[in-house]
Every structure is written in structure tokens, then in C-alpha cells.
């Protein structure tokens, strides 16, 4: 029987088969080949499940082949259950022959021609209503005037102010007519004014403003008949964070990065793109703070160190070869996102001064003409992404891609030179191309050319330069299969100031001078946020977050246990403590959800990369410096590289080679570090490896090779590599050896697909072993200490130069604690740390706040008393409290 398999689909589609001339169609029985499923659902199934499918009869094996699905406790049979019951019932039916159908004959009394039936007390006669219903159905009679069925979807749990999408897609109109939806709020918590948007759609949006339970009803109709109401219950928990939803703002595009909303309970507003899209560099947003709670606004500002000098360029029609590139006041900001294997360019970051162009459906299309060439700037926030440019250029036109933009305006250039009909490589500087290498293209035989170029976006901007007389379509692709791509922390936008206005009253206006700032309290109601960018020298506004005021002020507080867990998870996954606002964001966030947010992020891979470089190279002066290697964390984060391939790149890098000169050293180190082999015990293997290193054909691990890279590749393919690699990663995280049996399982998964690494890390973070590890104090590595002292004291991460030099220094001591204390002192004395004056200071409260800030816990009574006593000394200043905490033994752990 085929029909039931497509039951859910077939029912609504049935109408299409029966003509449109009658809104309530009646189908001639002769046209049917099977009994009407709607009749079954409405009339027959209730009869069967209430009479036959009772305990001990046709609801379990033992009663022949007629086994039926029972209704749930509300008396309903699911769509799937109905389909199954129909399929079962049809096995006992001969269409149009009721008196030959066992489904009818078995419960028919014997005197009326029925068969033996052990459940004879349910039998009926030919005069009964049951006989009539079954006979009609088997005869092919259809039901008219069948109302649709509403399905409001399953119960929902969410957070206050979080957008909830209701699901009425389960509703059915079984004759194929279009459905109308009508949602209404039946009940709500006292004082609540929830938002129900698009209540006449199948999937409306709901947002509650208070904790508690909401009941919503759905009624559907087909224009004539209405369903009974179905209800759904939505339970909302308190949410510390206001979810800034894209659609609440003027421009949806600006909020492509409402990232991890589901995981984090909501953040954030990334304003950069909107700024860049406006020539005046001012962006305005409107948002509503829900009733019932006040919020504080936090702005996170990224380091300015990576700001890219903005460029604009133009092409002179009269002199096609004279293309000028010069620094200008504009700048661009965009993100590259992916949607799986296809890869797409998401968001708009194209700025055109002439011509026509747009990014549509992830594809960039540019059109130019001699009068109006396509001229513009394309910028990518992600450090790396691959781009494939396919185009047709007319004779004389050129296509160059500039990348690796330097502060002096120079850049690498690659592309097609239409004048010389050649592919070129070179540098772009002072508005001119210096060709360093070229190759004849031979594309212009017919007066036009197909051009393809593959370019790796580097750390800085990439530009398309289009000459006149061309119509070109450029398609951008990303090789990644991941749906995540690095949202680069290296941005290019700069923000001078922002302000928040409530109605006509300006609440605050601030110029950034540090990385994180709370601006004051925002009451419930409508607000307008204005962000203005004027200079590339200003810090870049990274995101804005609204945090419930009682949490932001510490009144509601973050429980010490939660604070410690969050702190430990941040240390383990990204090598630093959380910023204050991140600590608040983690309230109500399960550890697994936090891991979901952090693992696989750019910062996660930057941390991983640093640890790996330290492991493989030990010394920072052998650090790889090629753009490709510097972009390695971003390539990992955007999914274009996996950790095994990344390891291979590290080991075959020039840096590794310099660190390990000569065949003996190189081969020994590779075998030791990647496979855990003691080379003194494997002299033959060592010799074969050295031979291969030197370029001779040799065999190791049963594989032949004749180069250094062959050797590395073969080693990486050994099962031992997976075990050694994962053991190291596990021990780094959990600080204990992995269980042997589980390690084998993990290793097999890793061998099959190294991209499983992030999933494994998430599993480890969720494991009981990690829970146990988090409970105790674990020593901070020097890496962690440096980052923690910057984040805890200055509210920012160290620049790479700061990190590198401090790390090198700390590694110079067997016990780095004295130097750690020196570093903390230098920073506290720098004047960059916000410190209160002593006059009027509530010492106990200040001490408690600093204990939580640096140690993740409140002070005990003795500590409070001692600090208070010491601070009673007139010479004792608040900064000394910080120095004591930062140089304590406990701060050396987390």
C-alpha cells in the first residue's frame, strides 16, 4: 500500500486532483481507487481506536495483524499515527466491497453474515451506525464540509525578550484549500505587554516582556470553515541580556551578526557595516527596552592596532592605464559568511563611486560601461577567504586584484592585464602597477577574454579594480564547508563616539578611550542609538550589549560558583578570563552552551595556534612570519583548514625547518613530537627518515617517499599521530590523561575527519572529568597569566607584541612568579588602571569587588578584616589592594 507513506503530503494535495470548479468538491466514487483518507480520519479512525484499540485487543500484538496506534491522553492521534492506522486498516479492506472486507465482517454479528470475533461484545448489526460508517467508507464515499485542523506546535521555553517563532505549520487543510491563520494571546503574566507579530501567518513572531507563562491560541480556516482552537504554552525565564534583534532596527543588514543568540541568551549589535554603508559614517538604530527591567549599555571596542588604512580609487576614462589609488576618508567593513558547501558572500560591503553593482544572494555582480565604469572598493573583515573571479573582459580592459594592503598604500597585485594580454603578478604602489612576473595569456584572439583568478584574501583589504569597456561578473566562493567563518577581530571600521537618546533626551555621549564602558542605565521604552565614525585612528566599536541593570551593578550578582566556572572555561578555551561583560553574559548560560560559543571561534584557534607554536618551536624567534601562516587561525576558524592540515603546515614551514636544522634533528623532532617515538629506540626508522629528508627514495612506515614533505605527510597519516595529538589536547584542557578506551574512539573519529576536533573539545568540556577539573585550582600557564592580567586590569587583551615579549620574559624564569608580580606592578603603576580615591571609599565593598574581579570569589571574613585593617593605614592606597591580589599565590591559578 503506497498511499499512507505519503499521507501527510497527500492529504493537502488531494484537492489538486479533483478540480477547482467547486469550492467544496465532491468526487465521484468511480474516480477513486481507494477509500477516502479524510473520511477515515474523521469517522472511521475514532470508531476503531475507541472500540478496537483498547488494552488487550488491537493495540498490541496478539490480536492478529490489526494493530492500531492509540490516541494520546488528549484523545488525538498524531498525523503519523493516523497514517499508520490507515495503512493497517486498508489491509483488511476490499475497495467498494464492504461485505468482502474483513474490517467490516469481523465486528459484524454472525447473524448478519459476520465472522468469528473474539471481541464479540463490541460487535454491531447491519442496522447500526457503525456499519453504515464503515460501509460508506469502503464504498468510497467522501466527506464534504470538513474543517481544517489547527496545530499550534509544541510547548516552548525561552528567555524574556527573546524572539520566539511560533510554529503553525502542522495545521492542515485536507482538501487542498489555502489556510488562513489567526493567532491570539489567551493568557499572559500580570502586567505583561507581549509582542505578537505577523499573527496571521503560520510562523508569527512572539516576544514576551516578563517571566512566566503565556498561552496562545491558533485557529485556522479555509475561507468557509474554521478549525477548533489549538493552544501552545510559552514559558519565559528571566534574561539578563536584551536581545537586539535585527528586524527591530532600521536596517536588517547591519545585524547580520546577531551571533550565537540561541546559545548566549542574546547579544549583540555589531554596527560596523551600517556605518560603512553610509557616506556620512553615521548610523542610527532604534530599539526598545522591554518593560519590567532597566538595562545598562556596554560597548566593546576592539584594539586599534589592526585598523586598515582606507583607500578609495578611481579610473580615468580618458587614460585607461592611469588608475589612481589614494588614501581617503572612507572605509569599508563587511563580513563573509557561509551557508555550507556552496559558500556565499554575505552582507554588503561594496562601495561604488560609479557604475553599477551589488551583492545579491551571496554573489557579487558588477556592471560597467565606458561612460560609467564600475569603480569601487570591496573589503573583507575575515582575514582570509578565497575568491574566484570569473569574468569576461573586452579587449583592452584589465582586472587586478589588490591584497595585502600596507599602511603606505602599497599592496600585492595579481590579475589580468588587458593591454598586454597577460597575467601579471606585482605590487601596487603610488597608483601604479609594478610587474614582477607575467605570463602571456593569449586570450584575445576573438577580441574578448575569459578571465579567472584565484586570490587569497589576506589580513587586509582586497580591491577589485575595473577598467572601462567591460561587463564583468565576479563570483566569490569560499571553499569551506563550515557555516562559520571568522568574524575577524581585526576590523577596519573606526568609531569616534556614540550616544543613546531616549525620546528627545540625550542619555549619554561618549568618545571611546578604552575598551569597555558602561554608559548608564536605560529605562524601559524606545531608544535611539547613534554611532558616528570619523577617524581611522579611533578604536573600533565591536559590539554593543544591553545587560540587565541589577546584574550589571552587581545587585543581582553573579554567583561565585558560576563566576569561577565561566572564568575557568574561558581560560581553557581561549586562554584568558572573560571580560566583565562576558562574565555577565554567561549568567544563565550552561557550560555546554558557552563551549558552543567559544570552541571553533577565531580566538579559540588563535589560542590553539599559540600553544602549538610553543610546542613545536619553543622559541618565539622562530615564529612563522609568512602571511599564510599568520592567517592560519583564521583559516581554521573559517573552516578552510583543519587542525591536522594546520599541523602539517607548521611542520613543513620554513620556521620549523630553521628551528630544526639538519636531517638528524628534523627527523628526530618530527618523530618525537608527532608520534611520541623515542628515536634512540628506532635507529632504522631514524636512518630511513634522514635518507628521505635528504631527497633519496626511502621507506618509512611502509610508505615510500623522497622528500622532507613526504616524510611529514607519511608521519601525519600514522594512527599514532591522532592519539598523540588528542592526548596532548585533552591533557591541556582537562589536566589529566585521557581514558584509554575513549581515546581510541576519539582517535578513530579524528582519523576519519579531523574537523571533528571542535566537537571533541565540546564533548570534553561537557564531561564529568572536566567538571571535576574546574572545581579545583589549576596553575595558569604564562600565556594565561599575561592575558589574564591584561583583561583583569585593563579590560582588554594584550596586543601581539605585548603578549610575545611578556611571554618570552616569563619563560626566562624557572619560577615566573616574581616576574609576574613585577609585570602586574608595572601595569598598576602605569596610570591606565581605573582606581578610586581613598576618600569616601567603602573599603570592604571595594575589597570584595576586587576579590571577585581577580580571584573569582568573595573574600572570607579573615581576609576582609585584614584588608580593612591594613587599609586603615593612612599611607595605604587602593592600588595596593590590587597589587596584593595580583601577586598572591591564588592569582597564579584559576
Amino acid at each position: 500500500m503506497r498511499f499512507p507513506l505519503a499521507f501527510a503530503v497527500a492529504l493537502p494535495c488531494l484537492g489538486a486532483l479533483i478540480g477547482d470548479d467547486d469550492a467544496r468538491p465532491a468526487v465521484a466514487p468511480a474516480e477513486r481507487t481507494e477509500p477516502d483518507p479524510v473520511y477515515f480520519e474523521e469517522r472511521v479512525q475514532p470508531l476503531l481506536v475507541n472500540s478496537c484499540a483498547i488494552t488487550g485487543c488491537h493495540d498490541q500484538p496478539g490480536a492478529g495483524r490489526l494493530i492500531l496506534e492509540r490516541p494520546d491522553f488528549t484523545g488525538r492521534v498524531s498525523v503519523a499515527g493516523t497514517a499508520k492506522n490507515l495503512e493497517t486498516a486498508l489491509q483488511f479492506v476490499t475497495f467498494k466491497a464492504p461485505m468482502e472486507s474483513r474490517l467490516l465482517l469481523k465486528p459484524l454479528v454472525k447473524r448478519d453474515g459476520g465472522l468469528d470475533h473474539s471481541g464479540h461484545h463490541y460487535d454491531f448489526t447491519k442496522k447500526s451506525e457503525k456499519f453504515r460508517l464503515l460501509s460508506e467508507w469502503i464504498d468510497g464515499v467522501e466527506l464534504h464540509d470538513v474543517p481544517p485542523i489547527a496545530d499550534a506546535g509544541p510547548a516552548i521555553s525561552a528567555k524574556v525578550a527573546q524572539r520566539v517563532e511560533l510554529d503553525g505549520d502542522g495545521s492542515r487543510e485536507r482538501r487542498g484549500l489555502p489556510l488562513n491563520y489567526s493567532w491570539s494571546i489567551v493568557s499572559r503574566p500580570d502586567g505583561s505587554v507581549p509582542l505578537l507579530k505577523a499573527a496571521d501567518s503560520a510562523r508569527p513572531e512572539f516576544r514576551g516582556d516578563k517571566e512566566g507563562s503565556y498561552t496562545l491560541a491558533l485557529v485556522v480556516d479555509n475561507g468557509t470553515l474554521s478549525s477548533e482552537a489549538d493552544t501552545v504554552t510559552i514559558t519565559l525565564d528571566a534574561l539578563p541580556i536584551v536581545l537586539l534583534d535585527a528586524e527591530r532596527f532600521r536596517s536588517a543588514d547591519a545585524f547580520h551578526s546577531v551571533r550565537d543568540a540561541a546559545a548566549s541568551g542574546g547579544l549583540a549589535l555589531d554596527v560596523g557595516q551600517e556605518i560603512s554603508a553610509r557616506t556620512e559614517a553615521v548610523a542610527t538604530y532604534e530599539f526598545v527596552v522591554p518593560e519590567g527591567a532597566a538595562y545598562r549599555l556596554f560597548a566593546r571596542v576592539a584594539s586599534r592596532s589592526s585598523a586598515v588604512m582606507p583607500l578609495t580609487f578611481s579610473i580615468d576614462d580618458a587614460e585607461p592605464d592611469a588608475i589612481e589609488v589614494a588614501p581617503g576618508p572612507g572605509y569599508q567593513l563587511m563580513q563573509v559568511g557561509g551557508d555550507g558547501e556552496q559558500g556565499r558572500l554575505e552582507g554588503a560591503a561594496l562601495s561604488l563611486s560609479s557604475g553599477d553593482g551589488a551583492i545579491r544572494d551571496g554573489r557579487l555582480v558588477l556592471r560597467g560601461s565606458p561612460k560609467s565604469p564600475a569603480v569601487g572598493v570591496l573589503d573583507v573583515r575575515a582575514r582570509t577567504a578565497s575568491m574566484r573571479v570569473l569574468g569576461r573582459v573586452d579587449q583592452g580592459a584589465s582586472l587586478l586584484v589588490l591584497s595585502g594592503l600596507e599602511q603606505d598604500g602599497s599592496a600585492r597585485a595579481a590579475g589580468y592585464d588587458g593591454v598586454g594580454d597577460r597575467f601579471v603578478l606585482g605590487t601596487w604602489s603610488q597608483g601604479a602597477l609594478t610587474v614582477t612576473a607575467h605570463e602571456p595569456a593569449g586570450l584575445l584572439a576573438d577580441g574578448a577574454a575569459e578571465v579567472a583568478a584565484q586570490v587569497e584574501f589576506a589580513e587586509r583589504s582586497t580591491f577589485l579594480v575595473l577598467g572601462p569597456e567591460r561587463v564583468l561578473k565576479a563570483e566569490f566562493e569560499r571553499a569551506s564547508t563550515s557555516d562559520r567563518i571568522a568574524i575577524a577581530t581585526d576590523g577596519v571600521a573606526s568609531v569616534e563616539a556614540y550616544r543613546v537618546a531616549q525620546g528627545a533626551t540625550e542619555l549619554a555621549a561618549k568618545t571611546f578611550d578604552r575598551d569597555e564602558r558602561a554608559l548608564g542605565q536605560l529605562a524601559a521604552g524606545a531608544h535611539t542609538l547613534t554611532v558616528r565614525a570619523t577617524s581611522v585612528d579611533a578604536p573600533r566599536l565591536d559590539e554593543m550589549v544591553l545587560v540587565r541593570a541589577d546584574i550589571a551593578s552587581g545587585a543581582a550578582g553573579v554567583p561565585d560558583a558560576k563566576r569561577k566556572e565561566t572564568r575557568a572555561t574561558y581560560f581553557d578555551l581561549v586562554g584568558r578570563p572573560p571580560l566583565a561583560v562576558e562574565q555577565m553574559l554567561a549568567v544563565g548560560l550552561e557550560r555546554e552552551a558557552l563551549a558552543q560559543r567559544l570552541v571553533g571561534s577565531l580566538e579559540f584557534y588563535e589560542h590553539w595556534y599559540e600553544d602549538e607554536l610553543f610546542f613545536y618551536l619553543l622559541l618565539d624567534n622562530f615564529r612563522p612570519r609568512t602571511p599564510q601562516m599568520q592567517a592560519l587561525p583564521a583559516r581554521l576558524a573559517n573552516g578552510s583548514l583543519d587542525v591536522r592540515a594546520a599541523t602539517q603546515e607548521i611542520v613543513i614551514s620554513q620556521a620549523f625547518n630553521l628551528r630544526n636544522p639538519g636531517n638528524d634533528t628534523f627527523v628526530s623532532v618530527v618523530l618525537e613530537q608527532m608520534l611520541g617515538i623515542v628515536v634512540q629506540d628506532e635507529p632504522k626508522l631514524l636512518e630511513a627518515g634522514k635518507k628521505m629528508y635528504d631527497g633519496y627514495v626511502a621507506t618509512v612506515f611502509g610508505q615510500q617517499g623522497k622528500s622532507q614533505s613526504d616524510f611529514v605527510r607519511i608521519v601525519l597519516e600514522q594512527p599514532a599521530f591522532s592519539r598523540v595529538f588528542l592526548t596532548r589536547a585533552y591533557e591541556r584542557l582537562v589536566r589529566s590523561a585521557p581514558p584509554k578506551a575513549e581515546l581510541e574512539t576519539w582517535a578513530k573519529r579524528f582519523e576519519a575527519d579531523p574537523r571533528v576536533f571542535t566537537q571533541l573539545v565540546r564533548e570534553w568540556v561537557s564531561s564529568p572529568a572536566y567538571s571535576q577539573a574546574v572545581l579545583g585550582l589549576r596553575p595558569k600557564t604564562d600565556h594565561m597569566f599575561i592575558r589574564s592580567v591584561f583583561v583583569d586590569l585593563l579590560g582588554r587583551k594584550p596586543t601581539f607584541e605585548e603578549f610575545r615579549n611578556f611571554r618570552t620574559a616569563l619563560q626566562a624564569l624557572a619560577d615566573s612568579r616574581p616576574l609576574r608580580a613585577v609585570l602586574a606592578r608595572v601595569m598598576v603603576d602605569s596610570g591606565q588602571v581605573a582606581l578610586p580615591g581613598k576618600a569616601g571609599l567603602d573599603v570592604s565593598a571595594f575589597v570584595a569587588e576586587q576579590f571577585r574581579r581577580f580571584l573569582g570569589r568573595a573574600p572570607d571574613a579573615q581576609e576582609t578584616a585584614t584588608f580593612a585593617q591594613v587599609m586603615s593605614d593612612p599611607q595605604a592606597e587602593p592600588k595596593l589592594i590590587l597589587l596584593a591580589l595580583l601577586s598572591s599565590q591564588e592569582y597564579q591559578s584559576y
Partner: protein
Amino acid sequence: MRCDRRQFLLSSGLGLGAAALCPSAFAAGNRKTKHVVLVALAGGVRSKETIESPDNIPNLMRIAGGGVVCPNVKAENVGHYGAALSLFTGNVEVFGIREYGRSENPTLFEYLRKGLALPANSVWLSTTNGNQQTNFSYGVHPKYGQRFGANLISADGVFNAEFKQIVNSFGTPKIPSEQEADVVARMRDAIDLRPGDKALPADALSQRSVEQFILEEIGGKTVSLTGPGASDAKALRVASNILRVFKPTFLGVALQEADVAHNSFNSYVEIIRRNDAEIGRLYDTIQQDPELRDSTTMFVVPEFGRDRDLNERNGLDHGDGSTELNRVAMFAWGADVRANKTVKESIASIDLAPTICHLFGVKSEHAHGKVLRSVLA
């Protein structure tokens, strides 16, 4: 013996008697040695460029003139790290080249600190760079370990221009007043003291004195040393300062820049010459200090040599198993070392650790080397 404020604070904090501050109390029997300096001339240095080319090492020859030269020291080629570590443990240490692990055997530092109940500031190690060499400071033997480890400073890691520049970007480091240090210490003690503790462990106090030393050194001249071999030079320069300030019972110096020989023979020789000059400076520091002059013994020895022949880069590797690789020359001088003597008998580099322990009357129970009685007076 001079007792400055630092030592006074240390002694009062430690609750140790005068013996803890007076190295003379450690001298074994009638030995005069109260301080030992061991320079591991590591990085792979052949005798051919030392005792067979005296012009390269005028200072070492000067030192040896008053002491002993041992031209026949057997060294195990187990990689730089393992071989240099062997000098400090008295055992052949088999370690991977990049391995970042500690020895299972106690080091000289641990033997001396445990055997003589020394505070951390009496035992130091100055190295060329951090990372692996930090592991020389203590092993993982359960009866010894970190609590008996050395204070270690890798000079080039801390006292370099980049670090100073970064530090200065936050402002000139300020040395705290005594009053400020006291306030911070009282609050820090409230956190560090665990329930039931009566006083801080000795190492906590030791760390604070090292903290002070680093603050003072950051402003010093060591930072300005540059050029080939500067890292080794800094290690030796810092060693001189440590000797002057702390007058430690034992000071180790671990060099390694000579390994540049893989790619350049000429640079290798230049580094040997520069190191010789700095060792001469260290020797002079000892000579100019009345307390150290007559109570210090000094040893200088490579961890192993190098190949007999040049490689294709006109450099010298270390893997041919030749005599040049496995036999090196050691220089010794001091109060308890024989004068103007060449000891030709075959000895081993792992004999050095037991010999130094012997000078202090401490038993190196896990070391496999033997005491070099032929070297001692």
C-alpha cells in the same frame, strides 16, 4: 660576611639561624669552598677550538693556569638538552631535542638545597634562554623536586630591548618603598597563608626578594648587549650580578649559542671567543670580591663537542660519533682544586655533579658519576 637588608629580611622571615646565611658552615671537612660556579659551555664546543686553539680562549687559559685542565672528558651525545642536563644531574639523561620535560633524577641544585637546608636564593641558574633550560632547575624525583629547585633567570629572555620597550610603554618601573612593600605583603599574606599556617613558606619570601632584584635589573646595562652570542653574554653578565648581590652557594650558567656552528663555523668561533671574554669578566668579579675570592670554585665544560668534518654549509653538526664529538675539555679552578695541573685520565661529564656535591659534603645519592678526586686538591 656582609649581611645586607635583603639578607636580613630573608633570615628573619625564614626563621633560620646564622648558619643558613653563612656558607662557611657548609664547607665539607676542611674544604675551603663555600661557593661553586659551574659554566656549562653548551651548544657543542670542540677541544679543537678551545685547548687546541689557545688564542680563542685567553681567559680560560688564564683561569686554567691557576687550576686544572681535563682534556679527556667523555660526553654523551644525547642532544643538547639531555647532554647539558646530564651535567647538572650526574646521570646520562636521554631526552628528545625539543622535549620539554624534567629529569627523573635530582639536580645539583636540589641535592645542595636539601642537603644543606639552603634557601632558594642560595642556589641559582642563569641561562641563555628560557623554555627547555628552565627545566634544569629541578627534576621530578619525589624526594626532591620543585621545593628544592634553583632560582633561574634566562637573561636574554628578561633583559632584552623588546621587553624593556614594552615595559616602558607602561611607564618606568618603580621600586616600591619599604612601607609600600610592607602593606602589600601584609595583604598578600592574608591570601597566601592557608588555614593553620603560622608563617609563609621560605620560597614565598625568596620570590619577593627576586622580584626586587628583577625590578632593579630591568634598569641595568645587561639589556644593551647585542650582536652574535649576546644571549650567552647576557647569561654570564647576569651571573656576575647574581654573584655580587646574592653570593649564592651554587651558581650554574647554561650557555648554548655555539650551536650556530651548524650553519657557520666562523660565527661559532666568534661566540667561543666572546664567551671566553665574558667568563673572564665573571672570574674577575670573583677575584675582586674579598669574600668570594678565596672561597669559590669554578668549573667550565661543554656538554659535548662537534663533528670532525665540516658539513656542506661549512658548518659543524654533531652526529658523526667521532672523538671530536665525544671528548671535550674541562677547566677547573678554585680553593679546593689542584693548581696548574693537567689531568689526562679519562673522566666523564657526569662526574661533575657528584664532585660538586662532594665539595659541600652532600651525597648525590642518585647520580651515577664519580667524584673527581684527581682534580681536587
